[in-house]
């Protein structure tokens, strides 16, 4: 097991390096200059030259690349060109917002998508149940998150006034209270802060979760179909076991492996989904930060964000691969 993890982590290094290099060069191939983006119409030649020198962008590209890699090895992603904050500190602040959004939308997607997929697979011969469920899945796939997001905002935030329009709640306060132990001394304040965060999280998680639930439901449906066509299910039924027992005891357990694969894929899709979700809901987070960083040509910030995205996806896939062995004892690591 240890060898397996070590090998996987080693393999992750070239992947990460590749992703970082692509981002580095892609950002520089993009037309536009960070200093021009920063100065707008006041971009005189002298001011631009000053700015380029101050930001170190006057150096040859190879030097900048080598510097970037060497710094990254030391986990120093540099400072944001625009705002001057250290990128690692910036990402540290943004990551929790994106993390809880991905987790909450995962909960929504799994709670909605998996049961729908299972029911749809089991009731595939009943068009009254299967068709509406498949239409629901199709709807989710067809609705872009920015459209659904604006719709949710107009209905639940503007018209019904049930949810806030923007922001992510005071997540910093929640984290500080957890770290300092105040969460236990002042549980009232802590739960109020958590409530505020959840209040802000509900609509974005619903929007992202719903659009992803469609994918999850389709994947779960085919996973379930595959499982229930296996011989051991037929045997279970032939024994006269109740359908519930067949589904819960035999089919669901065996569906866990494909379900884990789905969750692995889901994290990648959800992370990219946060870009649009956070922008539409004006939530702080890595996705919104990435959009702003790219439009401002804030190279270090964009590079840092994409590196974190890549690392998260690699890590989640590693965890998923390790969990395979937990849910299926037949799988061993070599």
């Amino acid at each position, binding site marked *: 097991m240890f060898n397996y993890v070590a090998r996987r982590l080693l393999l992750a290094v070239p992947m990460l390096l590749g992703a970082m290099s692509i981002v580095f060069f892609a950002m520089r191939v993009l037309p536009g*200059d960070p*200093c*021009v983006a*920063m100065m*707008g*119409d*006041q*971009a*005189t*030649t*002298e*001011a*631009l030259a000053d700015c380029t020198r*101050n930001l170190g962008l006057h150096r040859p590209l190879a030097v900048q690349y080598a510097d970037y890699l060497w710094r990254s090895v030391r986990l120093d992603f540099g400072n944001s060109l*625009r*705002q*001057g*904050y250290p990128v690692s500190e910036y990402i540290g*602040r*943004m990551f929790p917002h994106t993390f809880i959004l991905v987790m909450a939308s995962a909960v929504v997607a799994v709670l909605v998508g998996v049961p729908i997929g299972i*029911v749809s697979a089991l009731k595939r*011969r009943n068009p009254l149940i299967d068709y509406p469920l498949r239409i629901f899945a199709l709807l989710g796939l067809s609705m872009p998150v920015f459209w659904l997001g*604006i719709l949710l*905002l*107009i209905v639940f*935030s*503007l018209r019904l*006034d*049930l*949810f*806030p*329009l*923007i*922001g992510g*709640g005071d997540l*910093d306060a929640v984290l500080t209270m957890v770290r300092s132990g105040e969460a236990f001394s002042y549980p009232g304040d802590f739960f*109020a802060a*958590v*409530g*505020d*965060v*959840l*209040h*802000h999280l*509900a609509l974005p998680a619903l929007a992202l979760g719903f659009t992803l639930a469609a994918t999850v439901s389709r994947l779960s449906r085919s996973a379930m179909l595959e499982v*229930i*066509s296996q011989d051991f*299910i*037929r045997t279970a*039924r*032939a024994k006269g076991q109740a*359908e519930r027992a067949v589904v819960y005891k035999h089919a669901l357990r065996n569906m866990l492996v494909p379900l884990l694969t789905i969750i692995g894929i889901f994290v990648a899709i959800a992370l990219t989904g946060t870009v649009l979700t956070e*922008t*539409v809901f*004006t939530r*702080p987070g890595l996705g*919104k*930060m990435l959009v*702003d960083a790219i439009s*401002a040509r804030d190279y270090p910030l964009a590079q840092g964000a994409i590196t974190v995205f890549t690392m998260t996806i690699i890590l989640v896939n590693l965890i998923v691969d390790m969990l395979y062995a937990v849910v299926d004892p037949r799988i061993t690591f070599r």
Partner: protein
Amino acid sequence: MIDPAITTLRSFRITERGTPMPSHTRLRRSLMLVTALAALAIAALVTLGGPPAAEAQRKKIVNIAAKEPDTLDPHSSTLGQSQAISRFMFRGLTRFAIKDGKVTTAEVEPDLAESWTLSPEGTIWTFKLRKGVQFHKGFGELTAEDVKFSFERQIKKAPGTRYGVNLDVIKSIEVVDPYTVQIALTAYDPIFLLRMVGYQQGYILSKKAVEKQGDQFKWNPVGTGPFYFERHAPREKIVLKAFDKFYAGRPQIDEVHWFDVPEDATKLIGLEKGTFDLLYPEAVTADFADQVKKMGAVIDRRGPGQQERFYINMTKPPFDDIRVRKAFMHAIDRKAIKETMYPGDLAKVATSCVPPGYFGHVPMQFPEHNPELAKKLLAEAGYPNGITIKNYFISKSFFYPKVLTLAQEQLKQAGINVELQVVEHATYHENIRKNLNPFVLYGGTRITDADAWLSLFFDGKEIPDPATGNKGTNFAHYKGIDDLLHAGRVERDVKKRAAIYAEAQKRMERDLVCLPISDVPGQWARNPKRVSTPFAADYGEFSLHYSYNYPELLKVLN
């Protein structure tokens, strides 16, 4: 595949208690359970974390939707949102004057300096500072040292500072006593008091705070303005709080929450919902203005804003012939361009090559739109088949491509064909300084005096020339008012100066060297039921801050 026989047997099952239960009943129960749980979750979420409305009512909070500033160091940023928020926290020695209930950018009045004198030869300004002015966060009283430091850091071009060029006229700064500062100039400067306005280079910072915080100052600003910086949640909001010791009295507003909202559509939803009281939009379109009006909000329009204009290079054939320049001007329908770009009240057709709001502005006359007359003039000048301008460079950013394509169509009607090459904004700036375009489209705002404006765009010394490396902005290559500019720089009588610049505009009108298109005001949307300003919405104040000149005079109404 599952045997169909098995599936048909599933319609009734024996439950553990032995009661037969139809599968659809089970499904209904499950659905009801899920619905009930979902309803409970939504109810909990809605009630949890109670909306901040109660807090907003207790405190007087103004919520602003704008983009996030790139820095809070007022000497460092050129972005509109950064300059706008600076005005809430910083002040200068002088400020734009309030005259007859309006704010003018053409005159100044005392702010951190309570008085000043100018030496007889006109090169030494002595400012007496207002006593008892406090910096935020306990950084003590404002002294002459802070004034000296604030200007010198820019003159020495401290990393990131951008406005040192506006202080090049300063030779030395001397602290006479804690409340007196003497600034010696290289020569008399008629607009020096405008340079000292709390705006860009004019803001006074706490020396102690800058020295203590170093690079961190950009997110820990310390000024003397009506609001102090409280905290920054990146990509979310900046919180400013009323400064109890603000020298002109504590503002009525307790807190300003500056939200990072990049999308104008979200800003509008927020204004309608009441989440935001003030919007700083990215672009005010006719649709945006309509929506603001429909929801009962107002647009605060403030001059001088930005002027978009053409300069015609009078030394480059065929435009060295005044008839061709006149033909060019007859070909351009300024009103049509303005109406397409900024319908109705969104901007005004420009009236002079010195925008209104600048000291010395007088209206000018320009050739009216008449393509036939343009063709006739071209024929007279020896171009009966019109002219073609190849490789005309235009920036792909801001208003440039839109205005130029409109103008291109109009010029074509008059026989002037322009073949466009769209380039990056920086390349455009480079190319126009290499004189590659025979006429140049340009925009922007500068220090609000005809001297500053005309010296940049019409002084013979500012003619760009790649051979000498001069990267000036006299794109017309005009030398016709050099004598007047010189006279204006040494003239101390205000009326005589105004007359000099009126004469300069008359000469430019005669020589046909510039064609201003639109004067586009700075615009914010405001919920008038929540926030009031003492100045009229329509050009009630002129401002260079991309914001309100006097945020301390904004009031929360309920």
